[in-house]
């Protein structure tokens, strides 16, 4: 248990620092940035208390906001993703989720990708809708969501595969 908590705390801090120091300043093609801090929300232990999980996700989003001067958009997107996670888990993992026996280290790559894709698109859509905050710019919102999502998904999947120990 302690080991898991320690890993999560380290992951929290590391992902936050990588996000604000490196990923917020990539600006690929002018405006495309990956938001990889949501890996923390993806990989948070499934069995843990949901209230704590919601709160930690909120805190993570708020810290990213603090660094990027964006009001509360990351906090809102992160907490929504955390709240919707059981649904996304159910739709991607199916039976495994019912039995509470998901191990992110040892899932099939296809399932992992579908899980991350749904989550990322949800998160980014909320994020950019709130950031642009203007319904008439819906094309801009969709464009940003699409391209940033692609970037985030590729990076997230690579990072998860690279850092999972038990994969054969």
């Amino acid at each position, binding site marked *: 248990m302690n080991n898991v908590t320690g890993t999560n705390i380290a992951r929290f801090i590391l992902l936050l*620092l990588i996000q*604000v*120091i490196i990923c*917020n*300043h990539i*600006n690929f093609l*002018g*405006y*495309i*940035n990956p938001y990889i801090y949501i890996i923390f929300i993806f990989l948070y232990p499934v069995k843990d208390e*949901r*209230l704590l999980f*919601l*709160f930690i996700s*909120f805190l993570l*989003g*708020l810290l990213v*906001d*603090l*660094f*990027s*001067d*964006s*009001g*509360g*958009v990351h*906090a*809102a997107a992160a*907490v*929504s993703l955390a*709240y919707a996670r059981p649904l996304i888990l159910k739709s991607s993992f199916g039976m495994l989720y019912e039995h509470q026996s998901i191990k992110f280290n040892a899932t099939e790559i296809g399932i992992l990708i579908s899980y991350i894709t749904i989550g990322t698109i949800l998160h980014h859509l909320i994020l950019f809708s*709130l*950031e*642009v*905050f203007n319904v008439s*710019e819906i094309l*801009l919102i969709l464009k940003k969501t699409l391209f940033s999502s692609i970037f985030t998904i590729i990076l997230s999947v690579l990072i998860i595969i690279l850092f999972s120990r038990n994969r054969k």
Partner: protein
Amino acid sequence: MQQIFNFVIRNKTFLLFLLLLSIALTLTIQSHSYHKSKFINSANVLTGGVYGTMNSVDQYFNLKTENDILAEENRILREQLLNSSVVKDSSFIDTTYQKSKYRVTTAEVYKNSYSLTNNYLTLNKGKNDGVKQDFGVITSNGIIGIIDNTSKNYSRTLSILNHKSQINAQLKSSNHIGSLTWNGKSPVFVQLEDVSQFAPIKEGDTIVTGGESSIFPKGIGIGTIDSFKTDISGDTYTIEVRLFNDMTNVGTVYILENLDSNEINSLENKSDE
């Protein structure tokens, strides 16, 4: 009563979610109104410290460009000094006439963003250095923005690449004024709106800051006219301005304090009554 408690306990996850989401939305909405984003901004000890450490590493990679910019600026200053119109050998020097109106502070940019819809810069000078809200920020090329929040050692600048930014500007060739806004599309262009249709506009003309606001002195460079079109109403021009500054590469900036701003503001408030 029992039922209320039961309801709360049963739906505690959803209620916490609603609470956190509404906090986040409140912060978001507040951040869209100028001068209200007090709590969530990057001018504080934690974020300033992290960005400061990062900047001290980052600086070394930009030393060469930074040197070039400084050398170029030195050249311009030297030129102005040599061509200055003040007659040096006169026996009478009117010192009161040369009283400076602006105090200039140099600052390092710790964080710069230009790809969001509302962009800010974090600078390494704050209240301890006498920097306050509504001071202007420029570089040797032109304007950057206006200070909108300060902490002890850091300050946050509302970039001209921000929906909230509205700066008084005018044509260099005539005194027709307009307000400078940004449509969020490209960090290279800003828009000058509400320019009178009688203004003589040519592509390539220079746009400078107007003297109407007490934040910037008159005549600081902004950019050149790239294209222009008449408004829907047909009364005014909207001008696409190509910025002098490369907003994606800002290292050292100057913070301007107008020493007369209190006097000007109190005078203007008086006439409102």
